[in-house]
């Protein structure tokens, strides 16, 4: 057995344990433990995806999805884990868009976990179309990205502001995999009354 196979099996096993842990915590209303278990699992997912991205075997399964559903699901999941308000703005979201839901969910979840650490009161998730691209944004009301970070080229940035940069690296990879008929998917970071993470997916 190769290391990578063993790693995959181990990750699978640990995720099962985390799932059981999260479920038990949820039953007794312990949102904090649910949060820790789910973030730990998300980190493992990213680790596995990183390996695949490096090997060039990260594949996408693009299909018609409902952006509003995804954001509402994420907001509900996160809302139970935090005292902050998680707001959703999907009034202008298209009914359907084409993307790999598992990968996009992973990217947004990581952006939300990051926003949770910096928000003061509210995190806002939004989906809308701009220039023929679907934009998923995660916005917090904290102090924003440090200017030095916004000036760095995308490949060098660390999304978590203090982490490994894995999250942003994967977000860029996932965005690129969604390019379609000459239009590129991309990730943008900007400040606007807090930090805004934006995932752009072409039509």
């Amino acid at each position, binding site marked *: 057995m190769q290391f990578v196979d063993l790693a995959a099996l181990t990750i*699978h096993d640990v*995720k099962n344990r985390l799932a*059981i842990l999260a479920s038990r915590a949820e039953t007794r209303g312990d949102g904090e433990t649910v949060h820790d278990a*789910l973030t730990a699992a998300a980190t493992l997912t990213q680790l596995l995806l990183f390996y695949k991205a490096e090997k060039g075997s990260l594949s996408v*399964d693009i299909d018609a999805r*409902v952006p509003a559903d995804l954001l509402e*699901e994420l907001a509900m999941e996160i809302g139970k884990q935090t005292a902050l308000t998680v707001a959703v703005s999907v009034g202008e979201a298209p009914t359907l868009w084409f993307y790999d839901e598992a990968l996009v969910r992973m990217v947004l979840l990581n952006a939300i976990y990051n926003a949770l650490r910096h928000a003061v009161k509210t995190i806002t998730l939004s989906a809308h179309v701009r220039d023929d691209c679907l934009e998923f944004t995660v916005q917090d009301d904290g102090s924003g990205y440090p200017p030095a970070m916004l000036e760095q080229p995308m490949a060098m940035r660390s999304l978590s502001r203090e982490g490994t940069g894995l999250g942003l690296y994967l977000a860029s990879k996932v965005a690129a995999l969604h390019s379609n*008929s000459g239009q590129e998917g991309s990730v943008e970071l900007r400040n606007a009354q807090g930090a805004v993470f934006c995932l752009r997916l072409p039509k």
Partner: protein
Amino acid sequence: MATLTPYSNKSILILDDLPEMRSSLRSQVGSLGCERVAVSSNVKDALEQFKSNAFDVILCDYYLAGGTDGQQFLEFLRTRNIIGRGVLFVMITAEKNYESIVTAAECLPDDYLLKPFTADVLKMRLERLLEKKQRLARVDQLQDKGDWVGVIAACDVIIAAKDRYLVDAMRIKGNALLMAGQAVEAIDFYQQVLTMRPLPWAKLGLARALQKKGDATLSVAALSELIAESPRLMAAYDLLGKLHLELGNADAALATLDSARTISPNSLARHRAIASVAEVQGDFQRVEQALDQVVKKTRNSPLRETEDIARLGNALTEMGEPAKAVTLLEEARKNFKEDANNPLMAAVEAIAHQKAGNPEKAEAALERAMNGDLAKLPPAVVMTVAKACLSAGKQTAAQEIMKNLVQSNPESTGLHAQISTVLRDSGAGDVAETLVAESIREMIQLNNEAVVRARAGELALAAEMLTEAALRLPANMQVVSNAAAALLFDIWKNGLDPAKLGKAQMFQQAVMAQAPRHPKLAEIDELFSRIRSKYSPVQK
């Protein structure tokens, strides 16, 4: 806002091999207010549950103990029609990307749920999926019935509404066009979908449509491009392999299926597909290699298929190992009662016994093989029974069976060629040259004679002749539909006869089930309505 779908009345099955996961899922499902929840730890137990319960929702973990996985379980349920399309199947996995090796669209789960998830997420997901099932309920029912023309119309209604189910309806409509035999319409439709977005399922659909239309070369090109873009789409390899075979390129077919197996080494369907091509090619070593793995993997699983064992036995016999084949087949027959009278297995066993030098055991096996009505079996099985007759030296019986095969499948030139080869190999060279042509001539003559009789006013006799032929050749749609028409014409002319009317209805239904677009059906309908208006007082 989403309307709430109550699931207190929904019946749910949970299948997971880990006890902690089962109880965790159970408590999550329980917290949603579901009361009818069944839990299984393995496929065997789950299949038992299906005998006494109908489930609305199945939550199944991808990893299952005992050499099987959730995908194999789902394929088994769908291909055996144990669950209809209205049943919600959710696959629970740790990594979607890790396992999502895509098979045929009808064997895809309705959704993947990635572990870990909270009860709230499960609830929201189930609500949305149940809403979707509700919206597609009519389409699902029509699909289950095989009423493809109805499916197309029902999908058009949803497509026109342009709601969130638009693309689901498109996917189903494309398949329905193909199933209804509307290849040209399907090509147009898929091209239209592809301008919206180059989705892999639409590209595959286009390739299928091109193949159905007869543009094999274009279809091969489309599939090669699709495989380069979506190397995990197994259905594309299967179709490409089939096309290579049709074009007479067995080596390319095997190479295609081999590359699919490299990507999805654990899939039973992969090994079975390779075995089928190798059989055509006469490469029984490959057949043995592929099926040996399938049989080993499914030996103690309820997902085992009798056919795998029969085909493996056949390969062993062909390789000159009839004793090994006999051991394999006898063991299977002892361990699984339902296999005891399986005609394919019995026929293969008869041949193996004959080659191994046990003519008496061969005789007994052959008797079992010929026990039932051969006309109701697939051509490949009947062919094996004929071969078993030949190996036992029963030339007359074999030729009778082959004659029926030709007459039941008058357009299957591949089958005709196979029959000639088998006869030639058995040493009956002279018959090999004539049997196919003779059988077809006999059938045409019978049809012609019936027409002559009918024109001469002997309608009852014509109907009788065709009825007899239709009962002997239930797969020959021309004969069966002609029999229905002749019976009805006789009734219309000569008076109502309940027995004849019953037979005509039976034949009409057989054609509708097997060839819903058969041109003769319109004439049959017309005759029915003429009979109704002529005899309407009688019916009241």
